[in-house]
């Protein structure tokens, strides 16, 4: 997990992508990668199960089967009626896990998408715009966009992100949307740094100078010239981000600052049932396994993408 300091080294080798020319056959190599296959199957199954939850869940996740519960207050073990047993309130645990999967994956993908989008935008604009001259009141004012954006990123990287995120969610009140925004708000800096570093290498390339000389507009150069070159990097960062956002959300939930109780995520289910680890290990273990499987699958996919897109690391294997 993003446990200690945030690491901002470029997961792809810088020159390889510019020099290897064309990524023909990348997809074929990716499909042949065993790690990628396993990752896609595992993550695909989890996503499918979560998306289809309303149709495949055996019970209403919030219905409490109180009449079936033993008097000592313990949860029901797995049975034909409840494939994974119930929680202590008599709710079907499989159904709860499936619905929690929806919340978890939605937060994980959305937060990650926003974080990578902000980071990419900041990194590209900083590298391309450098200094923008604005005419204000007859005078030309130079705005050092590059320095400002990257210093902002550095400040973001120096923040104790976990403390900041708990403080923000506890001050503003828990909701899935807020958790998503808070996670994106603290995790975009890594992407910005890495994309910026790559874009700085691209901006001195001849094809960029050529586009500028031809009078191509700034936004169009960013879209048509820079973006294709950073796209593989973004793919890798996004796949790595699935794991870190889900872990981050789980950690927030564990500290009581993640998803609200009425729409639990796996992290929330896990932390809610942590106290039962002595009596019924199944309750905290199952959401834990779901988290670990998702993160593991996400990392397998990311590793495979990196290997395929970076010939040097593939050769080193």
């Amino acid at each position, binding site marked *: 997990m993003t446990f200690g300091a945030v690491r901002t080294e470029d997961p792809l080798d810088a020159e390889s992508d510019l020099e290897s020319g064309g990524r023909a056959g990348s997809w074929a190599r990716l499909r042949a990668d065993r790690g990628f296959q396993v990752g896609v199957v595992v993550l695909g199954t989890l996503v499918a199960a979560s998306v289809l939850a309303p149709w495949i869940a055996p019970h209403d996740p919030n219905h409490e089967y109180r009449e079936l519960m033993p008097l000592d207050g313990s949860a029901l073990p797995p049975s034909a009626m409840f494939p994974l047993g119930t929680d202590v309130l008599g709710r079907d645990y499989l159904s709860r896990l499936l619905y929690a999967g929806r919340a978890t994956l939605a937060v994980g993908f959305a937060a990650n998408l926003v974080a990578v989008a902000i980071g990419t935008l900041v990194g590209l604009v900083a590298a391309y715009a450098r200094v923008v001259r604005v005419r204000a009141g007859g005078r030309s004012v130079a705005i050092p966009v590059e320095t400002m954006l990257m210093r902002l990123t550095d400040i973001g990287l120096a923040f104790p992100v976990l403390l900041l995120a708990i403080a923000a969610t506890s001050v503003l009140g828990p909701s899935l949307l807020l958790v998503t925004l808070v996670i994106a708000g603290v995790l975009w800096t890594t992407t910005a740094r890495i994309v910026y570093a790559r874009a700085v290498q691209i901006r001195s390339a001849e094809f960029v100078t050529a586009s500028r000389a031809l009078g191509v507009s700034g936004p169009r150069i960013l879209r048509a010239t820079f973006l294709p070159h950073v796209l593989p990097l973004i793919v890798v960062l996004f796949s790595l981000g699935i794991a870190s956002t889900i872990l981050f959300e*789980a950690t927030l939930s564990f500290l009581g600052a993640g998803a609200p109780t009425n729409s639990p995520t796996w992290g929330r289910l896990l932390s809610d049932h942590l106290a039962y680890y002595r009596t019924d*290990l199944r309750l905290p273990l199952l959401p*834990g396994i779901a988290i670990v499987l998702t993160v593991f699958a996400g990392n397998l996919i990311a590793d495979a993408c990196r290997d395929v897109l970076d010939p040097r690391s593939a050769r080193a294997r």
Partner: protein
Amino acid sequence: MIWYIVARVRWSVLVLFVVAVCAFLLTFVAPADPARSIAGPNASAEAVERIRVALGLDRSMLQQLIDYFGRLARGDLGVSYQQGGIPVTDLILGHLPATIELAVGGLAVALLIGVPLGGLAATRPGGHLDRLVSVLASVLIALPAFLIGVVALYLFSFRLGWLPLVSGPWDPWDVRALAGPAIVLGLAACPGYLRITRTAMADQMHQDYIRTARAKGLAERAVIWRHAFRNAVPPVLSQAGIDLGFFLGGVVVIESVFGWPGIGRQAVRAITGEDVPMIMGTLLVATLFIVLANLVVDVLNALIDPRMAEWCDEDGGQRA
């Protein structure tokens, strides 16, 4: 070089300033009314108003910001709402030793596992050990730190009884109490060291001087540890410095799992209790450690390898 250090220090101060302003703004967003929290639920309106004036909360926002920086300059972080008016500085300093012990212990465990294993893995890329190390790193990265902590508590404290289950008041010499949280922190942090050491060593093993060392008949062990390893150390040390900075700001998760009385657990309690001065204080102290660690690592790197100081060229030109 001196200009590099000056530029670097100036930048660190700026970061701290921005974080301090952000922490200050947090007080205005927080729903809790500080005067009301101190006075208690049964206090009269006049009593609450008196406290508001005494705290300077009736002044303008800008005036409050200036007051706040004036107090910061004297090392005064305000008083805790939650804990009966004890100064936040005292509370943080009181819990800091426990965090320092855990941070150093955890980092030591991470280095002891990560560096030798990562280094050995790089000597035979694709070998059994290399594969084992990469699987270990992938598994540890996929585990949330609190899950490792809870499983460790369950196994070693509850099932096997090797480690104390409920730790009493903090005792710096109680190694048994430290073992659990330090090992879990070390396990959670070690994938980074496994990967960094492996990459750095693998890079070195391809260098010409390694071929020369082998060609002149040095034993493989000497080639690996006396030559390649020494050159692979700097990136590992950089990461260790930065991680230490992060840990000193409170190992929030692991302190909470094990009930370790450091500033991280204190911060979580402050956040759930809406103890705003305590939250602001901890945020600032945590940032201070991160910024200091980054500063020290960058300056040390620049002293070891002056090429690193090129960073300041953008505003320092040839001065370095």
